[in-house]
């Protein structure tokens, strides 16, 4: 058994079986992470470069830890401190890195489609760690793993994605993944932050936060991405928080228990209030823990396809 893809560019390209395989393998790696020695020798012959053209804390540390737990050699690259600022092109940078015998590329870029473009030009497996406003596949996989761990499955579960859907690659990857796995998805936020025609992806649309929370089993609250909003899309952060911020009062007013998720970093007091983020409803820190296991699974499964790569 193996994945049907040679790169992880997005959830869009994955089959349901691929997702199941990744989640199954991740469970085994999560077990490894509970052992006295949290490291296995599997990828000791593999070198991985983490190319980050955009800032990141969680994702970069999580990937690096996953690589180290698999005994791979890692190189970290941040665009801000490299020759990119001297004008080197993406392909040149990556080919230079690959000529030093690097096997896999983990990459984050602010341009949508950058990893897809690279995958057509270089002979190494590429893992998309977030490209612009397109996809963030490992985040969606770890979200799915965390939901499955808490609720026992994905099929038939009701998941709400709340907030800045327009600029969120986490939202798009989650929509692809959850609909493929048979979950019901509803997006909720101010009309200016919800893309037109999104219902064609098989999701419901709501503008009423309370109704959405009442409907869902899981609320995945997304960050307001001010750095990608080039024009004002709502009047103020305070007003956003009043209408679309998830607060303790709101969660307590529901007649059911819901699970709260957030991909981080949290804008406390904007999309999510501290009294919810730090409550028993929240599985935000479980998401971070599961992220390492899920990324180990992705690296393991793609490293096994190294020899099939031809450009």
């Amino acid at each position, binding site marked *: 058994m193996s994945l049907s893809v040679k790169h992880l560019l997005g959830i869009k390209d994955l089959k349901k079986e691929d997702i199941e395989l990744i989640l199954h393998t991740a469970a*085994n790696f999560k077990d490894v992470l509970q052992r006295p020695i949290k490291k296995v020798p599997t990828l000791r012959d593999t070198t991985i470069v983490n190319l980050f053209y955009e800032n990141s804390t969680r994702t970069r540390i999580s990937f690096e830890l996953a690589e180290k737990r698999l005994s791979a050699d890692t190189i970290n690259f941040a665009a801000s401190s490299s020759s990119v600022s001297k004008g080197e092109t993406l392909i040149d940078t990556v080919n230079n890195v690959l000529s030093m015998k690097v096997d896999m590329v983990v990459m984050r870029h602010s341009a949508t489609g950058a990893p897809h473009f690279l995958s057509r030009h270089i002979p190494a497996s590429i893992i998309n760690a977030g490209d612009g406003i397109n996809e963030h596949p490992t985040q969606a996989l770890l979200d799915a793993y965390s939901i499955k761990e808490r609720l026992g499955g994905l099929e038939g579960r009701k998941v709400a994605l709340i907030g800045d859907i327009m600029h969120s690659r986490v939202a798009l990857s989650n929509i692809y993944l959850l609909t493929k796995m048979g979950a019901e998805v509803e997006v909720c936020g101010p009309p200016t932050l919800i893309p037109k025609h999104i219902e064609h992806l098989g999701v419901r649309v709501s503008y009423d936060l309370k109704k959405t929370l009442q409907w869902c089993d899981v609320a995945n609250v997304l960050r307001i991405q001010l750095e990608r909003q080039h024009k004002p899309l709502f009047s103020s952060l305070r007003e956003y928080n009043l209408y679309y911020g998830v607060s303790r009062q709101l969660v307590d007013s529901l007649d059911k228990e819901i699970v709260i998720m957030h991909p981080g970093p949290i804008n406390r007091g904007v999309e999510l209030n501290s009294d919810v983020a730090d409550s028993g409803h929240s599985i935000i820190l479980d998401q971070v823990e599961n992220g390492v296991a899920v990324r180990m699974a992705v690296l393991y499964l793609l490293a096994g396809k190294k020899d099939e790569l031809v450009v």
Partner: protein
Amino acid sequence: MKSLYNQQHLKITLDRLTAELVENHRDFSNAVIIGMQPRGIYLADRIVQLLKEQLAGRPIQYGKLDITFYRDDFNTKPGELHIPTETSIDFSLDGKNVILIDDVLYTGRSIRSGLDALLDFGRPKSVELLVLIDRWFSREVPIQPDYVGKTVESATAQKVKVLWQENDGKDEVVLL
């Protein structure tokens, strides 16, 4: 095709292997059983069952070990990736006498990986190996079993197939 074990014969051998274990480890107060995933588990299940009968229901510490992440052939055969199964060892192996159980010992490479994996759960006092079938003359690393059901001389082209009632509908071992 040659039959190495039928159901009746297998029962006698499992009883003997169990008796040998009890002879060496008495009440199993400091010994633990580790079955190798995936096919060694059926044998380990049987042995643990028989031990419990012998030791009048004394609890036996029994774990399952998956060696996928410790294999030495990762990436040597393109397109044939091993998918892991469950590892469940919910006790420490520090200072324990570990009895590692697998169905067939052939090149010895799985056991080598198994030893690597075991060390990640603590430092055992000793490790012994119990196998049902030992394929002689085909070892690639210096590993020998301590308890053997049957030693078989076989050619590389041949295959040993171990069938279990719980999985395959009958107890039988054949040389193909």
